[in-house]
């Protein structure tokens, strides 16, 4: 009696490649995250929000920028200059 289906014999083998090369898109994304996050927590005095708000961004909170005040405690604790 004939089979109602065919069995296909397939030889497969698996190879494992290890690659040292970091994809350029990943490298760019991580470097951008580093630059942006480091600037926001460590150095921003209002520059980032000034892109949308102009000069007002430099004195939103007690005469200094919003991000400066929001990141204030971590800025001190991680060694960045502050006042």
């Amino acid at each position, binding site marked *: 009696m004939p089979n109602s289906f065919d069995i296909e014999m397939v030889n497969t083998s698996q190879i494992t490649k290890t690659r*040292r090369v970091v994809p350029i898109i990943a490298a760019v994304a991580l470097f951008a995250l580093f630059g942006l996050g480091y600037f926001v927590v460590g150095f921003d005095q209002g520059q980032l929000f000034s892109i949308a708000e102009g000069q007002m961004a430099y004195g939103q909170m007690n005469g200094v920028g919003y991000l400066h005040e929001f990141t204030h405690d971590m800025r001190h604790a991680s060694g960045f200059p502050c006042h």
Partner: protein
Amino acid sequence: MKTLSFLFIVVIAGLLAGLFHGIINVAVVEPYLDRAIGIENQRMFDEGQTQNTPQFWQQFSDYRTWQKEGSVVSGGILGIATGSLFGLVFAYSRHMLPGQNNVKKALLLATIMWAALYFIPFLKYPANPPTVGDPHTIVLRATTYALFVALSGLGAFGFSRLYKKMQNKKFVAFLGYAVFIGAMFVIMPPNPDKISTPMELVNGFRAISAITMTAYWIVNALILGWLWNKVQPHVENQEIQK
């Protein structure tokens, strides 16, 4: 390399370590910040800039609660930022680091990066609590600090290339970095602000903040190394049909 897996483990390791850093800071660093800000408040009362009233303290309490919440969030942001650079350098240098285990490799790299990007700059420009920094010198202090971190980091990178190329006498690379950073210590201007805050408070703050920053680097390395062992983002399996 599996790009998404790689990005995911790098960011998640940085985020978790950063949140850990932010949370332990609330417990152990914030008391120093509160004391220093208390001195600032007393100065404002003495100089008549504000009144010592219940309304002031209510507003102040709300403001400080918001800043402490901000400290945890910014710990996460800084963790992602620093962890991204750490993950990127780890991916490029993993094959050069000694050992088989990625946790050990990550801990070794974290030690080097902690020294180059945090501890050596800290020795030149130590962390200060509020009340020490003069708002009029912030641009100079921020510029010199960023420049010193960049020089130290690029110096470490440059001399690591030399270390790789040297067949013998690898100590020359360490010596070269020491001479380079020693020269930068002398050339770069000191922090211009005079410290009038009690030194016991300043030194206690510096010690505890250095400990929590060190803890951050250790935790980031442990998480990234462990995740790298689990996920193996550098390994690609391919099935070939014959």
